[in-house]
């Protein structure tokens, strides 16, 4: 049975992510403490809430060090969802707390000035699939996914230039990231019905190198 470990850092409502993976037949473990992360085969970091509070939660629970070792050191497949994608970067305009810094660059706030769409960006929006991608395998380009966020990863960043999927909301931004064993999406696949479930299934199909 495919195993997946979901990182709980005290803020996010992780229930819907657990539900989605259980629905896909995965064996789900919730890691509220770093000790519970050690045996992970695949890691999912969901996220709703604020960047600084979330990063502090990860640090206080000791997740940061274990994540670094598992994901960067041992090649454990990682999926960051929403805030879990933004954490990958060095910093965010949302606050001073630094991110994980696995990817260079910073996360920006949508400009909600005159003539710009409303912030936050909430709702179903289409993602143009640009490159060969593990996450989007078998998903048609311009499929709609469910977004809820006020901050975004710019295309100009290192990860943005290599993004497999682009979404437009006032500005083009990275809807997803892929580099080696690190995957992330800005939208909520667990709330994006069949297309989202297909993407989660694609993540489950990625074989961990360790084990």
């Amino acid at each position: 049975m495919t195993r997946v470990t979901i990182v709980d850092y005290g803020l996010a409502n992780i229930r819907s992510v657990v539900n989605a993976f259980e629905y896909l037949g995965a064996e789900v473990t919730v890691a509220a403490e770093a000790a519970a992360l050690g045996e992970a085969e695949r890691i999912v970091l969901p996220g709703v809430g604020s960047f600084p509070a979330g990063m502090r939660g990860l640090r206080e629970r000791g997740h940061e060090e274990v994540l670094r070792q598992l994901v960067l050191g041992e090649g454990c497949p990682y999926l960051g969802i929403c805030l879990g994608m933004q954490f990958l970067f060095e910093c965010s305009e949302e606050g001073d707390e630094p991110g994980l810094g696995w990817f260079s660059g910073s996360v920006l706030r949508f400009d909600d000035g005159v003539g710009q769409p409303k912030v936050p960006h909430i709702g179903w929006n289409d993602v143009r699939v640009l490159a060969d991608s593990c996450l989007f395998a078998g998903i048609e380009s311009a499929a709609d996914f469910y977004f809820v966020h006020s901050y975004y990863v710019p295309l100009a960043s290192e990860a943005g230039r290599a993004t497999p999927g682009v979404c437009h909301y006032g500005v083009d931004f990275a809807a997803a990231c892929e580099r080696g064993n690190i995957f992330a999406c800005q939208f909520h696949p667990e709330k994006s019905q069949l297309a989202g479930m297909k993407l989660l299934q694609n993540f489950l199909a990625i074989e961990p190198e360790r084990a």
Partner: protein
Amino acid sequence: MIKHRLIATLLVCNGNVVQTRKFKRTNMVGSAFTAVDFFNGWTVDEIVVLEISDDLTYLEKFVSIVEELSRRCFVPLSVGGKVRDLTLVHRYTRAGADKVVVNSGAVARPGLIREIAAYYGSQCVVVSIDAIADTEMPSGYRVATDNARAAQNLDAIAWAKQAAAEGAGELLVNAVAHDGDKRGYDLALLRQITASVTVPVIAMGGVGKWEHLVEGVREGGADAVAAGNIFHYTEHSTKKAKEFMLQAGLPVRPTTFYKLNTPRRVRYAPW
């Protein structure tokens, strides 16, 4: 491009899904789980579940229904009914609600909207407004609460503006007289509200044919359109509604089927 959403509404009374007409319960529809399974398969964009019993007797059962629904609902789930303070908001969100719907509780104490928004963010608060046509009010519409039994001395448009200012993420607008009577949304009411606020407005109440959904967006200015009764007895109902909206030229999320390898029986770990 952001899509117009098609929302299915489930009304739960005494633990059963029911239909209503002018806010009076008419008949039981059956299992909420079966309904949500079908809506999921038929490409609805969001599900709203409201508890409309007369008292709190069935609240525990309702919360357990929400928990079960969230296990098979892979679109945003909004839950409402009986919310007077943060206690029930916490319970609904823990049970799996992505958004919480408030109505009478917010009219009685508008600060409730701000409290929820401060804790969970504005995107989590949907303020539901039940309006009755009344020429004595400046806008021609009066707010009603308590399942439309209590007429308030409150103008519907003024309340919509106030709710948005308090931090509502969205407004769910229902015209009491149109509820369940299949004549379409109250477009005059919708037009006034959508012209008065910048938050997204969900039209609800009165859909009798798919054209009404298109009218809600085109003529009423709604961002999202909701319906309840019409979805229950039509095969592939939400899919047909979506296709109708697409053909009318509205930007909606199309129906694309992806095959999933799901187990025959899902095994859930205890929560």
